[in-house]
């Protein structure tokens, strides 16, 4: 009558260890640089912390739930000759496994709320709105970024660097380089955004055509650039360095090819750079304007 009585091979359960193993080894890998970055801003650190808290909570729940299940699959199998129990209800158990998860969620919600507040409504030590020391306006174009230093009369476009652009073309042609031969393949631009370290910087994001999203993982956030609207975000980078990101909202055929590079300089170097730009910009401005129109 039934074909189910075939005895089970031990091997069946190796699956669950395989899966669990991947899960754990995945985490081990994570230590070696494929986990979320801790970044270089207060906010990226918070995002990372939240990520890890929730991750570990999930791992613990997973071990408990899957552990119970796997134990059960070994212990409560027909081939061992067990009789199936016939209970089908336990109010106590059900209440417990409703209440405990609620408490767990509350414990996640508290730090998450704090972090969100810090991002969206930042305050300084005195409880005042955090003062922004400079403002950068970012405009998305298909498929490049325009950066404007508000009040400074400096602005320029930032596009995928030429060597990447050549290497990414489909097909073969003379002198074609392979992606592996190019440093920072797809993550380099002709002219990076330059900002000072340790400075509260307001970003205003908008777009000229479709929706883009400006994302540098090391800063810890991404924010959409929406045509006709201006979005606000802020950051304060703690370390000098070069940080790379990409457009994170599908924006057409070259969505994968509009990287973001931010050079964070010391305040002095930044000031120097900015005044150089101002000199140059008198000449440069015109071409920027025409480019932007296209």
């Amino acid at each position, binding site marked *: 009558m039934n074909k189910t009585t075939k005895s089970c091979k031990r091997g069946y359960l190796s699956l669950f260890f395989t899966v669990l193993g991947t899960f754990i080894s995945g985490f081990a890998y994570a230590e070696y640089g494929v986990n979320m970055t801790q970044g270089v801003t207060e906010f990226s650190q918070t995002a990372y912390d939240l990520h890890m808290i929730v991750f570990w909570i999930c791992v613990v729940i997973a071990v408990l739930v899957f552990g119970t299940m796997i134990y059960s699959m070994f212990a409560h199998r027909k081939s061992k000759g067990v009789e199936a129990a016939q209970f089908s209800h336990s109010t106590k158990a059900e209440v417990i496994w409703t209440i405990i998860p609620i408490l767990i969620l509350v414990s996640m919600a508290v730090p998450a709320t704090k972090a969100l507040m810090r991002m969206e409504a930042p305050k300084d030590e005195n409880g005042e709105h955090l003062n922004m020391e400079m403002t950068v*306006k970012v405009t998305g174009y298909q498929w490049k970024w325009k950066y404007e230093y508000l009040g400074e009369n400096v602005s320029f476009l930032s596009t995928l660097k030429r060597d990447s652009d050549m290497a990414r073309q489909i097909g073969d042609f003379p002198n074609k380089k392979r992606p592996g031969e190019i440093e920072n393949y797809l993550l380099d631009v002709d002219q990076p955004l330059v900002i000072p370290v340790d400075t509260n910087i307001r970003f*205003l994001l*908008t777009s000229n055509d479709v929706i883009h999203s400006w994302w540098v993982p090391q800063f810890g956030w991404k924010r959409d650039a929406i045509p*006709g*609207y*201006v*979005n*606000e975000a802020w950051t304060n980078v703690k370390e000098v360095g070069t940080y790379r990101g990409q457009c994170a909202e599908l924006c057409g055929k070259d969505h994968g090819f509009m990287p973001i590079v931010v050079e964070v300089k010391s305040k002095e170097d930044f000031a120097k750079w900015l005044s150089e730009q101002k000199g140059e910009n008198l000449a440069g401005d015109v071409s920027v304007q025409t480019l932007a129109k296209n």
Partner: protein
Amino acid sequence: MSNTNTEQYFVPHKARWPIVGSIGMTLTAVGAATFMNSSSSHTPVLMYLGFAVIIFMMFGWFGEVVKESESQMYNEQVDTSFRMGMVWFIFSEVMFFACFFGALWYVRNFAVPWLGGEGTGSWTNNEIWSGYEGVWPTNGPANVGGEFELIDPYHLPLINTILLMASSITLTIAHHALIKGLRKKTIGWLIATVILGATFLFYQAEEYIEAYQHLGLTLGSGIYGSTFFMLTGFHGMHVTLGAIMLTVITIRMIKGHFKPDSHFGFEAVAWYWHFVDVVWIGLFIFVYIM
């Protein structure tokens, strides 16, 4: 053995019409899509053909159902299925309108104020749309579609409100008459309902002509024109459909269909008509008055 043939749930054994309906639908869709995509404004023959096939299907399908119904093949359970079908169909229509009402609510309470600099919109207003006030009604900061004037809610729209509400009442009177078995009276009030519905449509057309020709208000008048015409337009299409259905049941009444205790076709149309009426009241308040 009076009820032998209805003890079982009636399951038809062949459905000829659905496939016709699908073909009609596809023709309509392909026809409309090609028409929209072509730059020249030829007549969308394929689309009309599709419509014709759909109408043919409806007559065929409903005709079959009417025939089965009139020959007593449906028991009460079948009747209940039909009722549930109709109720949930109307619910889906409610959600369709909710979508457009929701859009209206969103643009009025969020999008337009933000563009005007309220709330999180101050940078938006400063950087892109400075000078834009963000007051409803609006065709947006770029004055899309040019200047327009509004329709005075207390002229045609008010008349239309009264007409449609009156038609709901006349329909209810007709229904009560039907339950009491007063055939003549039912037909009379049904005809009155159809006339009220048709008059509504006439005035609605009048209003559109007025809007386009004298007020400068078109579908392209920014977000006001978009929400106004999409909401009233879809409503108008539903009134048209409702009026056609009313006409059909009037004809069926005249032909002697429906019984005081079983007349689902009548009721379904009545529910639909009341739904259309309720949507209109929503429109009158949220689109015209507020």
